[in-house]
């Protein structure tokens, strides 16, 4: 037993019944990993739980065969931000480059059911941050989280950006959840880092996610909420961030859109407003790195007539009926205009509702400084 590495003992703690992250943290701060493990097992046996004598060996083999790294609080490389109260973390698993946590980090969170423009915003902000060399922390969930990481991927692939993705997930690192993001998950493992408090094989259970959110909050210098409902996972991340004195910024949305109700509420309560990556960089005091993404908008400008339609789509999702009434055009003309706009990426359609993608006028870096 004595030839097993210390990290294997620390990792094995996560599989001891009744030993949560708080207990694990307390034991690891006070004792060596092997000692901590013995105590945890003794405690569990006292409670009548069955423990497995091979657990440590199996944990080592699992981690080694899956290429999963382990970091614990006694480890010199352990990120101090995670050891800080409240809700410190004693041990976590990772795949990828853990040294990224030493860089500048911004969390981007939001609803799992965003509007197309929310997705676009998350992607654009993440893209801008990555190009400015800032790492993006998120949860690899559906919706905004995935979009943020996807934005980083775009920036890295198209512009060799230095900012990378840091993902914190609520399942074992070999259990990809949600399946829809499997490709993105692998990309982040290869080009960034994926973290989890859960041992290999642990399923994604609902109660894991609020705990996961506290790590996202702890890892972020600033948390950006792109779209959120009035209650839900993103708001729990916001609470965790506030407890840890992290800045929270929110992207404003239309009052008619339910999935922006939470962010608008945050703004009412005094939270900072962001509309682009530049705003986030200001909060990090990195304005000098700002690259104006809008000035590089590759979409060809819509013609004067199509702008009328684009304008009509830009106040939230609308049906064709509403567009015909708003513009007074015939369906044929409208269909032609929407076709052109869609082809150039100005509008999007989902289930018959049309929406403009991020109209932005005259907000360039130059104007900001003046």
């Amino acid at each position, binding site marked *: 037993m004595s030839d097993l590495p210390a990290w294997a003992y620390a990792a094995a703690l996560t599989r001891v019944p009744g030993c949560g992250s708080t207990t694990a943290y307390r034991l690891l701060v006070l004792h060596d990993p092997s000692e901590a493990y013995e105590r945890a097992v003794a405690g569990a046996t006292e409670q009548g739980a069955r423990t497995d004598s091979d657990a440590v060996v199996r944990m080592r083999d699992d981690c080694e065969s899956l290429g999963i790294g382990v970091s614990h609080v006694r480890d010199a490389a352990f990120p101090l931000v995670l050891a800080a109260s409240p809700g410190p973390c004693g041990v976590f698993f990772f795949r990828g480059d853990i040294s990224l946590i030493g860089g500048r980090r911004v969390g981007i969170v939001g609803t*799992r*059911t*965003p*509007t*197309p423009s*929310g997705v676009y915003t998350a992607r654009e902000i993440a893209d801008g941050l990555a190009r400015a060399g800032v790492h993006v922390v998120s949860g690899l969930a*559906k*919706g905004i989280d995935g979009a943020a990481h996807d934005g980083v991927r775009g920036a890295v692939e198209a512009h060799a950006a230095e900012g990378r993705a840091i993902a914190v997930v609520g399942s074992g690192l070999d259990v990809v959840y*949600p399946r829809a993001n499997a490709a993105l998950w692998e990309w982040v493992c290869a080009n960034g880092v994926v973290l989890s408090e859960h041992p290999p094989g642990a399923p994604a259970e609902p109660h894991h996610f609020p705990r996961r959110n506290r790590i996202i909050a702890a890892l972020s210098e600033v948390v950006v909420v792109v*779209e959120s*409902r009035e209650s839900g996972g993103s708001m729990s991340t916001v609470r965790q961030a506030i407890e840890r004195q992290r800045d929270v910024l929110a992207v404003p*949305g*239309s009052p*008619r*859109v*339910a*999935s*922006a109700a939470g962010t608008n509420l945050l703004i009412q309560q005094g939270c900072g407003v962001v509309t682009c990556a530049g705003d986030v960089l200001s909060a990090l005091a990195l304005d000098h790195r700002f690259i104006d993404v809008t000035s590089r908008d590759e979409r060809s400008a819509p013609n004067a007539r199509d702008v009328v339609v684009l304008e009509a789509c830009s106040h*939230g*999702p*609308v*049906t*064709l*009926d*509403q567009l*015909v*009434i708003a513009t007074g055009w015939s*369906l*044929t003309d*409208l*269909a*032609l205009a*929407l*076709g052109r706009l*869609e*082809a150039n990426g100005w509008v999007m*359609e*989902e*289930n*018959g*509702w049309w*929406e403009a993608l991020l109209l932005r006028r005259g907000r360039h870096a130059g104007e900001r400084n003046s």
Partner: protein
Amino acid sequence: MFASINSATLFGIEGAPVCVEVHIGAGLPGFSVVGLPDEACREARDRVRAALLSSGFDWPNRRITVNLAPSDRRKGGSGLDLALAVGILVAQGEVDQLATNGIGFVAEVGLDGSLKPVPGTAPLVAAMRQHHVVVADAAGADALVAAPQRVSVAATLADVVASLRRVTSWVEPRAFPVPTDIDGCPDLADVRGQPVARRAAEVAAAGEHNLLLVGGPGGGKTMLAERLAGLLPMLDGHDAVTATMIRSAAGERLTGLVRTPPFRAPHHSASMIAMVGGGSGLLRPGEVSLAHGGVLFLDEVGEFAPSVLDALRQPLESGEVRLARSGTTLTLPARFLLVGATNPCPCGGGGPGACICNDTARQRYLRRLSGPLLDRFDLRVAVAATSPDDLLETEPAESTAVVRSRVDAARCAAIARQDKPNARLSSAELDDVAPLSESARNLLHTELEAGRLTGRGFHRVRRVARTLADLVGDASDTVDGEHVREAIALRARLGGVR
């Protein structure tokens, strides 16, 4: 001691002649019916016995055997009652057998000797073309619809016997009014502030394209679907007779030949048999057949049982439904325009961002619809609740009559060109009758290449584009870019697929 009386039994929407043979002979008093009767048929004994006694006739206390010929076919329902009662009277010598020759009897008898109408009177009468048919008073209109032959009505069993004994003469049924126009159909002018949904209804009617309305509650989906039936052409000739037979077989009272396109809106708890037809014994027509020539409206289409929705595929494809049962196969006509209405997600929130469902629930909801059935909707249109301003809009929208004149012209153009509505064009025929202009070709190429249009969507869009061209009168010309563009706009992307 023996009698043979003509009647008919119902099989699907067709009648089959039956000969009711009655034999009264020596032996222990008893009564047996042979020849595959169903329960209603078997119970005829008690009804007929009471009816005979109530009407002042004797019930023979001898051995009575009834055979329903041809005896290898199932008989059902109470329509054979009157024939049985007359048969017993003939076998007893109360009525002369010769007097009943050439006459068919279709009615149920009540315990007091009154005659009652039975479901399917129209097809039953039609099955006895060679005979003079006697039906219950209340079924006179139903019988007349189908019959080129002589039809008489009677109120009671005693009346029938009196006429058979030539004491009184037969009574002719009252003629019914022949409807000449679609009446009772709500007008399209009531739909205000939904120009695209109205346009979709027009296109659907003109090309027989199935239409899916997507939107939250209060969007007027049902209202629009009801008015769509009024845009379809009146049923004529063969279709009118078929629709009439179907209605009658389903047990509905007729007031005349059915000429108004039907509008059927079954609730989403409908069973498979209610939808496609069938049932034990008598194979009854289902909603798909009742909607023949008209509109089948499925509100909350995602809430229907998946097996019921799947069963719609055959009728949608072939315009008829084939019911196979042990020993019999029956084909019922079922050519209808399918109009579906659905919320985009279980919460009915409407547009993106307003919905509170989680992703899984939303995907599951759309998946219920997806695949083959979803693909059969050529037109998919989002409808939102109308704003008060539009509802109060002073200028009334176009009425059904105005829109119908355009629809009729487009339909005629399509029928003249290819002898079927555009929705039924095969992809090979599309190349012939709907050649693409240069701009249309480029446009479709771009959309396909960018992944904004699927291969299936491609053919659907071309059919709709053909109809759009027909509606503006470009019957012989190629399909233009603007038609294709409009067709694409009328096919909303659902679950990310167009």
